[in-house]
């Protein structure tokens, strides 16, 4: 029997040549070529090589041809194929990253926006290319202090890994302020890494830039080793995935929580504090990483239901059938590329579904989504009809007090 860490290591060291040496890889051989993966993929119709054909090419010894296509730039790592594959093949987790890595190395030209984001991440530790020294600047806008570990390295109950969009993007900072307020209100003893934190690197890895991911991972693990804490908390849905599935191979083994699961676990303490009524009809968008990949469908909904005044509606696609916002697997920086290929932005397709429900709030739980959906709402002219809010923002608002 492998230990959990050995198993994670075997997975992370996997190459296409050693694919069939572990059970998750051997599963690929059981593919029945049903096409479920291509049929459910939000960009399946634009993929020359959807997972089914990749497997067929692999079996026939023609995989080289796939490496020279751009097919998987269209994969937004949404886990739809993987969660519906009737053979349970670990597509998004195991097979596709290996193919993407080869494909990425063969790209004649990396789309500019993506190239910049990856370079920035390498240089500054965040895709926006902002100064690592300003990573914790958002903290200053709070009316209570937040402990930053490098300044005050005493042990903390909760280490909060803030992540990039939530540190730098103005709307991401709203998310962080909300989380801070909620933790503060609950009396949680927490601290952040401040300038020592770097991007968790999940997007880099899922777009095929494994080398960059390794650099970031090594650095983050090194930093974490310096401090003592009981729970590792993050609001980044992609960061959550990285720490859950990718980091354990390298010695990360702390109890892990996403803000939604953390708060849902403390709902009884939180409920009495949610005093302010928010009269909204809310459509909740299941983030791919939280929902399909980790099965957290009920936690965010339970949080929303706890807010007085809020009514929930479901869009056509929800739960396991949720529709990706298009931001995963590097899609965050491929909008221009997709547009050039005549592909509709998934965020716009999703906003159309949200509008159809009559909801006035589109609620999300992944920091990449807020800016994507807000942009879509604006472009489609629904600014007067709908706002995009993270679940934690709504919770913090319901706390009242400002």
């Amino acid at each position: 029997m492998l230990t959990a860490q050995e198993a994670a290591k075997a997975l992370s060291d996997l190459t296409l040549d050693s694919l069939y040496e572990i059970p998750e890889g051997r599963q690929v051989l059981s593919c029945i070529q049903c096409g479920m993966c291509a049929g459910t993929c939000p960009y399946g119709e634009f993929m020359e090589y959807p997972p089914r054909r990749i497997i067929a090419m692999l079996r026939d010894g023609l995989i080289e041809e796939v490496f020279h296509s751009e097919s998987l730039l269209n994969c937004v790592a949404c886990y739809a194929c993987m969660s519906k594959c009737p053979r349970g093949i670990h597509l998004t987790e195991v097979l596709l990253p290996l193919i993407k890595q080869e494909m990425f190395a063969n790209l004649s030209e990396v789309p500019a926006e993506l190239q910049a984001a990856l370079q920035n991440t390498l240089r500054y530790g965040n895709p926006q290319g902002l100064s690592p020294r300003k990573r914790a600047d958002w903290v200053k806008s709070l009316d209570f202090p937040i402990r930053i570990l490098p300044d005050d390295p005493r042990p903390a109950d909760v280490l909060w890994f803030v992540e990039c969009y939530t540190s730098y993007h103005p709307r991401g900072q709203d998310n962080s302020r909300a989380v801070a307020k909620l933790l503060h209100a609950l009396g949680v003893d927490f601290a952040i890494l401040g300038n020592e934190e770097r991007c968790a690197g999940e997007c880099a890895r899922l777009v095929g830039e494994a080398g960059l991911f390794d650099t970031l991972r090594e650095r983050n693990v090194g930093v974490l080793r310096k401090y003592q804490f009981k729970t590792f908390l993050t609001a980044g849905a992609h960061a959550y995935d990285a720490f859950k599935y990718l980091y354990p191979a390298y010695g990360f083994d702390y109890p892990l929580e996403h803000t939604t699961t953390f708060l849902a676990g403390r709902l009884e303490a939180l409920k009495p504090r949610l005093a302010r009524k928010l009269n909204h009809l809310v459509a909740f968008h299941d983030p791919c990483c939280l929902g399909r990949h980790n099965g957290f469908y009920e936690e965010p909904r339970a949080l929303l239901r706890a807010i007085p005044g809020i009514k929930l509606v479901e869009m056509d696609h929800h739960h396991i059938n949720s529709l990706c916002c298009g931001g995963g697997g590097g899609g965050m920086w491929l909008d221009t590329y997709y547009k050039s290929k005549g592909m509709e932005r998934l965020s716009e397709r999703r906003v159309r579904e949200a509008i159809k429900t009559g909801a006035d709030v589109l609620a999300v739980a992944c920091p990449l989504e807020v800016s994507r959906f807000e942009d879509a709402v604006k472009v489609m002219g629904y600014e007067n009809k709908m706002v995009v809010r993270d679940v934690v923002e709504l919770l913090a608002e319901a706390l009242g007090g400002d």
Partner: protein
Amino acid sequence: MQGGNGHKADQIRIGFYICHCGHNIASVVDVKAVAVFATSLPGVVVSRDYKYMCSDPGQALIQQDIRDYHLNRIVVASCSPLLHEHTFRTATAKGGLNPFFFQMVNIREDVSWVHEDRVAATQKSMDLVRAAVRRVSLHKALEPKRVAIRPEVMVVGGGIAGIHAALTLADSGKRVYLIEREPTIGGHMAMFDKTFPTLDCAACILTPKMSAVKNHPNITLWTYSEVTRVSGFVGNYTVQIKRKPRYVREDLCVGCLECIEACVYKDARFADEFNQGLSKRKPVYLPFPQATPQVVLIDPETCIQFKSGKCKKTCIESCDRNAIDLEQKEEIREIEVGTIVLATGFQPFDARRVPYYGYGHYPNVYTALEIERLVNAAGPTGGELILKDGRKPKSVGIIHCVGSRDAATNRWCSRVCCMYSLKLAHLIKERTQAEIYEFYIDIRSAGKSMEEFYNRVAEEGVHLIRGKVGDVYPDPSEEGKGRLVLQAEDTLLSRVLKIPVDLLVLATGLEPRSDAADVRRLFNISCSTEGFFMERHPKLAPVDTFTEGIFIAGTCQGPKDIPDTVAQAGAAAAQALRLVDAQSYELEPNTAYIVEELCSGCKSCIPLCPYSALSYVEEKKKAFLNEALCKGCGTCVAACPSGSIRQNLFEDEQIYGEIDGLLGTEFGTILDESPTHALTGR
């Protein structure tokens, strides 16, 4: 090879045989080396290896050696006792020995099929052989007992499987009790309009069999009844049956349906179970026109009298035969039967478990069984297939493998869905002229006339698309209002298609009934991992179970179509008849027995026996063991504090002997000490 020649009468003289089983054993175990090794073991007089010990020449070898070498014990190392213990015991008996002077060593399932290392596998075989040789020396002669078989047979479940088994048994003159849980027999087949591959009308072929059951002098039909307890053993089962109250007397009701007309509910208001809730019934109802027996029933959940006690009870007044009896109570009956056929069928997969196909959410998504009712001339719409808003569908999608071949739900292939989907495509096209899009993974058309049927439906112009639908969502286009888009890759074109349909049919799979585990426990049989009842051997004993006298037939054993179900039901009936006509059955003598002098009457064993074989005799103040009930599980043997319960074939000294042999503690034999005897193996 042979050992010493002169021998005394009480001397142990063992013949040892090791089987190659073709390559099954010989490719992993060095059988020659094991045969040589055996000659070194105390008591072994002859040792041979042979290609197929179970063959006639193999068995003859044993018999000949018994005579030639005056053997009095036999050991065969080959496959599982489950398969051939009986064969070799018989050979031993034919050679003139008591059949229990035989011991089997399983070096196939336990060695060659599970190991790759030849040296280690050979060593393990030797250890096992040493254990068996040691054990067999301690065996005693045993006499198998015979029990009488009662001629009555109980069939549980009145679907086509149970109906066919009951009629076969009754026609051959046996008394049959047919127990059906629902108010009518017929099972799923009664719901279909037509049946693949011949497209003959289900009612036309089923109804005559249903009436034959009702009118057969040898069949006692109890519907609306359930088995609540089974005790006894092969040939002598005592079965307790609960007969639920219909509130209508079966002996008086003639099925004129006046009472339904007279019910205070002028309109039918409650979901009709037989029509899958697609139509309504009243509290007093007949499940469907050909229901058998033709006796109405009253549902206390919806009847006003039962709910409030304040009904005018117009039904009672309307019945001139006074058949309605609201005071009727549940009845418990007990019957004695010799054998049992279980034919409890399947349940369709719950389509809600695959939420992304929208069943229960989008109004025009139906399961196949619902469509069966909707295209049925006797169904809720008189056979007209119309949408919820009254329109006729212009395009229809059918998705195969919903809840089959799917790691997230059921992994198995349900075997009938490809064919019934083609059947439904044909019927829907015939009724509506709609365009039909069938999404399949593979078309499985094995079986007589099935491929021809596939061919026929394809030529009718059904669009057959090879690809599993990945997404179902409302058509966003203006003209597509009310339609659903089916998104799937046509895997033969490598193109993702988006096909708008008015109606979506989900070909849901077959799965074990949700109470299969309870039924399994009640009858003390086994289930395979997925939950269908398990046959004794997948090839050679397909309708037997591990419990003697209990047989299985139809879809309770695994998914199958009507032809296979009926064939299996016939086979189960034949197996029951085999026992009934033999009139008695030989029991394995591995039962426990009580050494009365030692029993202190402490009673600790009594509650432990899972088969109720132990009782306490007050006069003697001792425990008593009914050998006919004892299954030889050994629980009491291990539990008795005074060591007064022992077990044939599992005596302490035999087990210790086996352990000593296994560990080599007494012989100290090891691999390298190869014996010098010459071998005479063939």
